[in-house]
């Protein structure tokens, strides 16, 4: 389907495609096994200006565009969902600074993030605060011109490898959600250490780690937005980044589809390629149609965000939920098309199933997304 991309968007997509094919695909299996952080690939992405896609030009970026971010993430994810998430998670950690940072904060942090010299991470999740972000227990207490952070974040993507963290902590527990505040915390700050690194089912090239804050003193200048705006920062960030997660799911689905179409064409049974069998053809037709439908949702949502439409929470939720459900179904079907070979680690397809699963879970489970969508629709109807 032709999405009438601009010349600039085509250029971004083509360049991301080249990086995916030349630099990501050849090392995808290696990082899936070793669970090392793929610095060599991130360096290439940085040199190619890919981290600048979600950062405004005046801070060393290329443009602040969700559509650009989606195009790049989709292409990277076609080759490896794990390496792609290292990139997308840096976007997630950068977006709150782009949205809410002061000019000074932007000047200090964004140029290094735009060049890929440093990567970012966003830290909301805690052991008892997953989908329910109001359960956050990490606290930040103001002492003079500093804040002192105490608490534990977990499941933080890019944790340990990122240099720049946006951390949500409670400045006033009595106010509930309105008592949360966002802070920029640099790696190396005394009192900021890293805990357990998770051993994951999929996206294994990305690091997922605990962040531990023990009397961690950070300057008041690192406060992002205002005290009490932590949840607004989080929600606005997720609204912008959710199309990115959707694009990740879309890319994983697209990648699995391409591999399986190639495979059924080559695999001969009963004297002919299995692509000649109707049972196989119908599966391919369904998979391709679902991927295309997901793409339509993702691109439309990204374009809404870029057009400056403020309330995109329903569309963002739809794109994320649908694309990730499609990714799960399409990758499982792709493995089915590979038959017994698909179940073996010698073939690349089982990794796509593992990489797809997380997209239904993180940045709000698909059950939470359905809740957002339903509430919004009911509210709209009641108007």
């Amino acid at each position, binding site marked *: 389907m032709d999405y009438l991309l601009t010349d*600039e968007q085509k*250029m971004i997509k083509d*360049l991301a495609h080249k990086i995916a094919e*030349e630099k990501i695909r050849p090392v995808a299996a290696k990082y899936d096994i070793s669970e090392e952080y793929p610095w060599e690939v991130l360096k*290439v992405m940085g*040199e*190619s*200006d890919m981290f*600048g896609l979600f950062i405004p030009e005046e801070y060393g970026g290329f443009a602040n565009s969700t559509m650009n971010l989606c195009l790049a993430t989709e292409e990277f994810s076609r080759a490896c969902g794990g390496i792609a998430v290292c990139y997308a998670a840096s976007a997630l950690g950068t977006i709150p600074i782009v949205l809410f940072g002061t000019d000074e904060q932007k000047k200090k942090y964004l140029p290094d993030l735009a060049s890929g010299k440093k990567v970012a991470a966003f830290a909301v999740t805690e052991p008892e605060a997953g989908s329910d972000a109001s359960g956050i227990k990490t606290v930040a207490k103001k002492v003079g011109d500093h804040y002192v952070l105490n608490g534990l974040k977990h499941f933080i993507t890019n944790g340990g490898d990122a240099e720049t963290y946006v951390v949500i902590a409670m400045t006033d527990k009595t106010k509930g959600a309105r008592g949360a505040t966002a802070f920029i915390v640099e790696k190396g700050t005394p009192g900021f250490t890293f805990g357990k690194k998770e051993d994951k089912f999929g996206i294994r090239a990305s690091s997922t780690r605990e962040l531990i804050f023990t009397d961690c003193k950070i300057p008041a200048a690192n406060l992002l937005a205002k005290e009490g705006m932590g949840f607004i920062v989080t929600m606005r960030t997720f609204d912008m980044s959710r199309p990115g997660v959707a694009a990740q799911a879309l890319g994983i689905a697209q990648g699995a589809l391409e591999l399986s179409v190639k495979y059924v064409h080559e695999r001969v049974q009963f004297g002919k390629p299995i692509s000649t069998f109707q049972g196989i053809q119908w599966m391919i037709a369904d998979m391709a149609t679902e991927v295309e439908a997901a793409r339509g949702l993702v691109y439309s949502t990204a374009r809404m965000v870029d057009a400056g439409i403020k309330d995109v929470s329903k569309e963002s939720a739809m794109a994320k939920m649908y694309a990730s459900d499609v990714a799960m179904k399409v990758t499982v079907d792709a493995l089915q098309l590979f038959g017994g070979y698909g179940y073996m680690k010698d073939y690349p397809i089982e990794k796509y199933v593992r990489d797809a699963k997380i997209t239904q879970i993180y940045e709000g489970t698909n059950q939470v997304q359905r809740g957002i969508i339903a509430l919004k629709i009911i509210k709209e109807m009641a108007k």
Partner: protein
Amino acid sequence: MNIIVCIKQVPETTEVRINPETNTLMREGVKSIINPFDMYAIEEAVRLKERFGGKISVVTMGPPQADSALREAISMGADEGFLVCDRAFAGSDTWATSYTLAGAIKKLGVFDLIICGKQASDGDTAQVGPGISTHLNIPQVTYVKKVEEATDKSMRLERMLEEGYEIIETPLPALLTVVKEINEPRIPSLKGLMRAKSAKITTLTQKELNLDPQQIGLCGSPTQVVKIFTPTPRVGGQILKGEIPDIAKELVDLVKGEVN
């Protein structure tokens, strides 16, 4: 350091078909790319520029569509592109091509270094680079695998041999041809692609270069492609057994028989 990089646009696939009647490449439906060996030349030029500053000019001789190869080189970090393009240059062999490119390079002015890929993936002659240096009367170092030291006056290079390498020092200006061991060509940046898109490519025709008409194009080409074919594989071979003096005699007889 002012560097000139000579590149060639070639068909992408290694399985190019030959039209058996005309002995020419069947280019239909085949994507054109920069000769892979020239990518290393561009990369090395960009690395030298990053170290010493200066300017990189990329030159190619070819049809108008070779414009895209020059733009790709600019996206990787070259500064300007020159397309040597004229019907009068058509049908050039390696002699005429190197003469024409040398003429274009003279037109570009002062330079410190010329870098070429070791050979083109379509013709595989490896003659154009050395040819250019001969026409320009500057030193050449072929099959360079490493730049050990470089100043604006001279270079110390590792030159690849079949077994091992040799170290060569050359004054500048000089011409190098490079092998793939020298570097890993970069992926262009988005900013580079943007710059390349709007870059001005200068076309140089025979009118501007005013070259000796007897040395350009088909009539300036002493070699001619008469036939392109895959050589038939050599078969058999014979192992002689016995005492050495007997084998020697037998071998001499056999060779004599072959010659006669």
